């Protein structure tokens, strides 16, 4: 495969590709340290400062640039993401559990669920707004937007759980059943601990997707904005480096979340391994 020439070329290309993915973020990180309040969201950096970080937390003297409207919207987004995570994961586990047995209409149900992640947010958002208007329901982030967030994230949770159940050894459950443990209890004490890493992944998916979800929320939530909507609101007016500083902070927060996930994941894998060793001895 003429690997001697091709492989290094492709390796360099992949490096450039990853640079392409990260470049805007690097630029964003640099510009977030622009001096304020006179420095704009572009090069050159007039002077380095942490002005815009302090600006986010309201630690700077008042200037003509309004602080980002993030306080309440951040709480709303976190609450919404939390609600979505719980419901989407429960629905995902239940549905994937259903698919472990064959039943009629399984194909249709599968496509119906997967459709939720394929239909663009603009369309479901618009449809939901129309439904709410027609039935005289008020639109709020915790009602109409929430159900759409679940429509979007539940398929991800479902697919993750489906993959987990595919590799799942059903004989442990059957052993529990044959010993007379009722199904609900079997699920709680045998099945659930085994699928827990999958549940964790499903929750991570649901949380991050919902936290950042924007197009569905745009039409389906009312006057109270979620975080992405508040950011979208700054599009139309002039942008300042405070939005970049905020982007850096949210990314760090997300990466921290990812780290927590990694820790929980490795802990549960280690525990599973320990149990397996105990059983062997």
């Amino acid at each position, binding site marked *: 495969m003429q690997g001697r020439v091709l492989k290094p070329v492709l390796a360099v290309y992949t490096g450039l590709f990853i640079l392409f993915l990260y470049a805007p973020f690097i630029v964003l990180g640099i510009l977030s340290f622009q001096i304020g309040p006179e420095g704009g969201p572009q090069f050159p950096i007039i002077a380095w400062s942490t002005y815009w970080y302090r600006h986010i937390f309201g630690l700077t003297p008042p200037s003509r640039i309004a602080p980002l409207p993030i306080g309440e919207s951040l709480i709303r987004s976190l609450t919404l993401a939390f609600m979505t995570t719980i419901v989407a994961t429960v629905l995902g586990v239940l549905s994937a559990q259903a698919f472990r047995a064959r039943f009629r209409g399984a194909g249709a149900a599968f496509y119906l669920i997967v459709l939720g992640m*394929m239909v663009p947010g603009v369309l*479901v958002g618009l449809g939901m707004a129309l439904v709410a208007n*027609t039935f005289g329901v008020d639109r709020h982030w915790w009602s109409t937007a929430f159900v759409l967030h679940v*429509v979007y994230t539940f398929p991800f949770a479902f697919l993750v759980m489906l993959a987990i159940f595919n590799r799942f050894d059903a004989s442990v459950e059957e052993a529990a059943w044959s*010993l007379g443990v009722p199904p609900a209890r079997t699920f709680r004490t045998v099945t659930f601990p085994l699928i827990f890493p999958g549940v964790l992944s499903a929750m991570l998916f649901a949380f991050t997707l919902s936290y950042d979800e924007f197009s569905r929320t745009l*039409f389906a939530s009312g006057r109270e904005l979620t975080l992405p909507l508040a950011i979208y609101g700054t599009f139309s007016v002039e942008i300042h480096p405070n939005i970049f500083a905020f*982007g850096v902070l949210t990314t760090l927060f997300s990466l921290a979340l*990812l780290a927590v996930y990694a820790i929980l994941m490795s802990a549960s894998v280690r525990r599973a391994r320990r149990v397996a060793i105990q059983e062997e001895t």
Partner: protein
Amino acid sequence: MGQSMSDARAMPATASETPLAGGARRSLASYALILPGVVWMLLFLVLPMLMMVYVSFWTQTTFKIEPILTTKSWVMFFSSPTYVGALWTTLRIWLIVLAATIVVGYPTALFVGLFVRSKTLSTALLVLCVIPFWTSFLIRVLAWRPMLGEQGAINILLRAAHIIHQPIDALLFTELSVIIGMTQIYCVFMVGPIAFMLGRIDPNLIEAARDLGAGFGRIFTRIILPLSMPGVVVGAIFVSVMVLGEFATSAALSGRKVNLLGNIIVTQVGSLKWAFAAVVGVVLTVVMGIVVSLFLRIVDLRREL
């Protein structure tokens, strides 16, 4: 283990009901388990989509819509050069971005899926590609402004390297900036599926072809490309669905010069023209349906995956 066994003995009454019994009972249980999810999707996904089709035939007056059926909004869409133009713009940008994501993403997928032997390294590379997704989508889009602007990073770098002398001002607030932004945001959805399919190619197959004297070009077109097609199709479906439903990237990077169907929907909803927004929504849904079914016709996914 010991604890659950003692619990099992404590409940002998339920033992007779253990569901080792028949398939009928198990499928009944499946229906009960799937029901909440299916009902949720019917109520909050299918109903809104049907509602959109229905409302697109309602009568729109200046301030409200009434459920009197008419095709006026439909006629208005197809007789207005602005809206039909938006349809063409959407299709054009979709095709360009789709081609760009394949061209940009395929070599990376080739490297990650086929050339990297170590499983750990290829996983690490894929994780590295996914990490940017943990920055807010909107902020990732906005970050292209200081990249592409007249005083932007690209112009500064190009001038420092003496490749250009005057800054290129066509980079930002044009169709090009929308295409660059979308390509960057969506190309990872192309890399993943292709790398997955390439990783499943049996190395012996390529070895055999090489032993028989085939050059890399021939191996690529006869073996690698056909076997990676299902990945390309899956990636293309992901990218297409997302690009066709876009409006935020064009709003942020085109300075309102590029109007996609998604942007029209947002504007129409903003001015409470619900019926008309619904028409545009239905048009978009139909376009998307055609695109996805065409892709599924190219490759029979159920057989390939």
